[in-house]
């Protein structure tokens, strides 16, 4: 068997030349065929056919024949019209019993050629099509790489015409042969051709199905590792078409480890290629948690953020932002995207002309925002978001308020920045425009609540709310119908606003106090109703205990103002506050002790507090581990015991000192044994070495000790805490 090596490039050039002579109308320049016009006026080309002859003598002439390449001989056999007239190509056959490859090729090649010509020119001839396709299918599976290559090229050409393409895709064997050829070949050009064939076929449903059924997907996924850019392009585009239109393709791509091959492609630099790749990632990961984790594991977040930062092609930015949006709801991807600089990168695209890009970036930022509270370098983003608060687009408002609310959460730098760039005014306008839209109102109010406490410019923000006429609008949010998350946020904001003394009167004028008291009563009744069951009730996701705490906390700060204090007391709130001292919620205990502490500044209220039996729970609260609670409780007790009998003052002092000695069990024991004093304590049991203890100044409000002592001193009631010292421990 003769197998002369062909120069590949030469071969493909020759194919091209053959094609040129074929698809271009044969003018006879190369073939030497003449155009003949018959009587009917139709033109046809005179054809010549090669006849191979067998050389039996004269071996030297055979040698001369060897100098012709095999390509030339194949050409001569297949396209004799390309020979110069009169020229004959002598075959290299030496053994009459054995045909050369060329001879072997001649007959089927002739048939093939004819079939192809007719296919091309006579589109409806199914019979011819049926003949050509099986032949080509066989050739694609040939052991000879050259043959496979040529066959692939021919098939590729066939896909350029609709009729022939249709025939190809209707043959599952043909498509399978192409897939196999692509997979098995070591030849780049063959691979490229095969990929191109599949790409052409992927524009029709039938083609997609044929590719899918013949295992095209794993083969195409493997092509994603090709060093040839064109192969990559054909492969990704074909896969994209499959993912878009072929049922089952997504699962197949995932199973073939498609994601692991696609994510590294994000490093490529062709924007159009990247757009298709990112769209594939979106199709694969939408609603599929496992895919999102695979993307994460392969460095997806970094690759995607890099694209957002470095490219301008709108379509690419849009497709990439969509992948990031899909990943942004995944709890594992979120921190990775933030760490890779995702917030900053997405923030670059909020002011461009592409509405769809801006909106996608905003939704993604909103999803990511709760993971980004500690991120640095967000100044630019924050400023842009404040600007977007002026929008009328409800989606934009929802996102801007939501992102700002989260980014100002426990971040004093962000709070200060937003306050300084007019965030308070902008948020108030957003609240006004939000109306009943809770998705805007809730985060806007939360953001204002963040801005009005725990940072250097909190006071600035508190004043700004008033200066921009925010107080009436905010108080109105407490009205019906109650959407509890908004109510809860508003109550917290009002508490912060009341920290600024100048806001106290405007809050009162806007009717904050009756609204808060009514809400408190309503919420408290609700908690009482469910007190028997251990179940906590939620309304709109908010517990009524939270409303009780919030309202009482706001009233506590409002009560710093004397006029407000009076109004609060006049609404019969004291009994309720005293009852709240018994709450199992520590925060509720704190705020109710706090409001009572303020109310007790007024004598009348102090008496009412006492009349409600507040002393007992307050005594208990003296022992609280929470220093705030203990302080308020002590202060209320001081204030309500001012006009009390000395008994009372003694007891208070005992309890107070109990709380002092709570870390000293011995002293506690001693102090504890001294109660009740009247019964247990007699003057003659006094230890003479110690001066009597005078509590003349107890609750008397700081009159000089010496002056008070003689007036108040009652020797028979002397209390000496050291009287019953146990053995030292």
């Amino acid at each position, binding site marked *: 068997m003769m197998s002369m090596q062909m120069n590949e490039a030469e071969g493909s050039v020759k194919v091209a030349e053959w094609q040129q002579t074929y698809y271009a109308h044969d003018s006879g320049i190369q073939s030497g065929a003449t155009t003949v016009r018959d009587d009917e006026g139709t033109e046809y080309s005179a054809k010549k056919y090669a006849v191979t002859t067998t050389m039996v003598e004269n071996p030297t002439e055979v040698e001369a024949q060897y100098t012709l390449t095999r390509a030339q001989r194949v050409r001569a056999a297949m396209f004799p019209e390309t020979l110069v007239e009169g020229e004959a190509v002598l075959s290299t056959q030496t053994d009459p019993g054995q045909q050369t490859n060329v001879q072997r090729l001649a007959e089927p090649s002739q048939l093939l050629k004819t079939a192809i010509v007719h296919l091309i020119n006579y589109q409806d001839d199914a019979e011819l099509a049926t003949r050509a396709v099986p032949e080509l299918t066989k050739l694609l599976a040939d052991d000879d790489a050259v043959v496979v290559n040529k066959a692939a090229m021919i098939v590729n050409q066939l896909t350029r015409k609709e009729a022939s393409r249709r025939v190809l895709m209707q043959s599952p064997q043909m498509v399978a042969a192409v897939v196999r050829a692509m997979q098995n070949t070591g030849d780049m050009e063959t691979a490229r051709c095969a990929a191109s064939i599949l790409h052409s076929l992927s524009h029709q449903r039938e083609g997609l199905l044929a590719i899918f059924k013949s295992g095209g997907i794993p083969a195409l996924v493997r092509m994603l590792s090709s060093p040839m850019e064109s192969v990559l392009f054909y492969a990704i585009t074909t896969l994209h078409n499959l993912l878009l239109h072929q049922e089952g393709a997504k699962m197949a791509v995932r199973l073939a480890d498609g994601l692991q091959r696609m994510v590294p492609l994000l490093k490529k630099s062709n924007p159009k290629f990247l757009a298709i790749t990112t769209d594939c990632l979106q199709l694969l990961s*939408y*609603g599929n948690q496992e895919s999102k984790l695979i993307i994460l594991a392969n460095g997806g977040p970094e690759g995607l953020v890099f694209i957002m930062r470095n490219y301008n092609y709108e379509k690419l930015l849009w497709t990439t932002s969509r992948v990031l949006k899909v990943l*942004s*709801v995944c709890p594992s991807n*979120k921190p990775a995207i933030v760490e890779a600089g995702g917030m900053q990168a997405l923030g670059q695209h909020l002011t461009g002309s592409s509405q*769809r890009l801006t909106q996608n970036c905003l*939704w993604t930022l909103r*999803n*990511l*925002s*709760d993971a980004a*509270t500690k991120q640095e370098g967000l100044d630019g983003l924050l400023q842009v978001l404040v600007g977007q608060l002026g929008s009328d687009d409800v989606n934009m408002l929802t996102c801007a308020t*939501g992102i700002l*609310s*989260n980014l100002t*959460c426990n971040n004093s730098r962000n709070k200060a920045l937003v306050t300084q760039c007019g965030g308070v005014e902008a948020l108030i306008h957003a609240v006004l425009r939000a109306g009943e839209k809770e998705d805007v109102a809730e*985060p806007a109010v*939360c953001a204002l609540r*963040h801005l009005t*406490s*725990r940072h250097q410019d909190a006071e600035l923000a508190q004043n700004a709310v008033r200066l921009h006429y925010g107080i009436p609008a905010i108080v109105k949010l407490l009205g019906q119908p109650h959407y509890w998350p908004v109510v809860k946020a508003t109550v*917290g904001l009002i*508490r912060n606003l009341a*920290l600024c003394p100048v806001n106290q009167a405007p809050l009162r004028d806007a009717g904050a106090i009756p609204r808060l008291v009514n809400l408190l009563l309503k919420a408290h009744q609700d908690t009482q109703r469910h007190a028997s069951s251990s179940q906590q009730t939620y309304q709109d996701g908010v517990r009524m205990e939270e409303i009780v705490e919030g309202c009482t*906390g706001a009233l506590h*700060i409002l009560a*710093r103002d004397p006029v407000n204090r009076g109004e609060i007391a006049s609404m019969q709130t004291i009994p309720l506050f005293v009852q709240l001292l018994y709450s199992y919620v520590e*925060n509720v205990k704190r705020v109710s002790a*706090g409001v009572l*502490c*303020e109310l007790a*500044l007024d004598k009348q209220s102090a008496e009412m507090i006492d009349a409600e039996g507040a002393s007992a729970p307050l005594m208990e609260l003296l022992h609280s581990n929470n*220093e*705030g609670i203990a*302080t*308020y409780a*002590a*202060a209320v007790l*001081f*204030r309500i015991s*001012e006009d009390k009998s000395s008994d009372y003052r003694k007891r208070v002092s005992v309890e*107070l*000192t109990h*709380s*002092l*000695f*709570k*870390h*000293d069990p011995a002293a506690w024991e001693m102090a504890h044994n001294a109660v009740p004093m009247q019964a247990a304590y007699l003057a003659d049991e006094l230890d003479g070495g110690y001066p009597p*203890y005078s*509590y003349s*100044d*107890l609750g008397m*409000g*700081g*009159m*000089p*000790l010496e002056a008070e002592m003689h007036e108040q001193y009652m020797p028979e009631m002397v209390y*000496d*805490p050291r009287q019953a010292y146990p053995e030292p421990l």
Partner: protein
Amino acid sequence: MNREEAPGKSPEEMYVQQKVRVLLMLKKMGSNLTPSEEAFLRNYAGVVNAQMSQLPQHNIDQGAEDVVMAFSRQETEDRRQ
């Protein structure tokens, strides 16, 4: 509030110390004091000075902490938009 710090202090001294602390804490937390309470502090200025350094440095009563809103839990991915 630790007896070990001041061994041998009389109960009344302890009491004054504690009342001063309570009043200073109230002021620190932003609450008002009565005129007599303010006078008490003036009276025991020495104790006040001693107590000031012993007050906790952190803020005691700042109201509810900021809390993030978890939007991504609610977010549903839109189809091909």
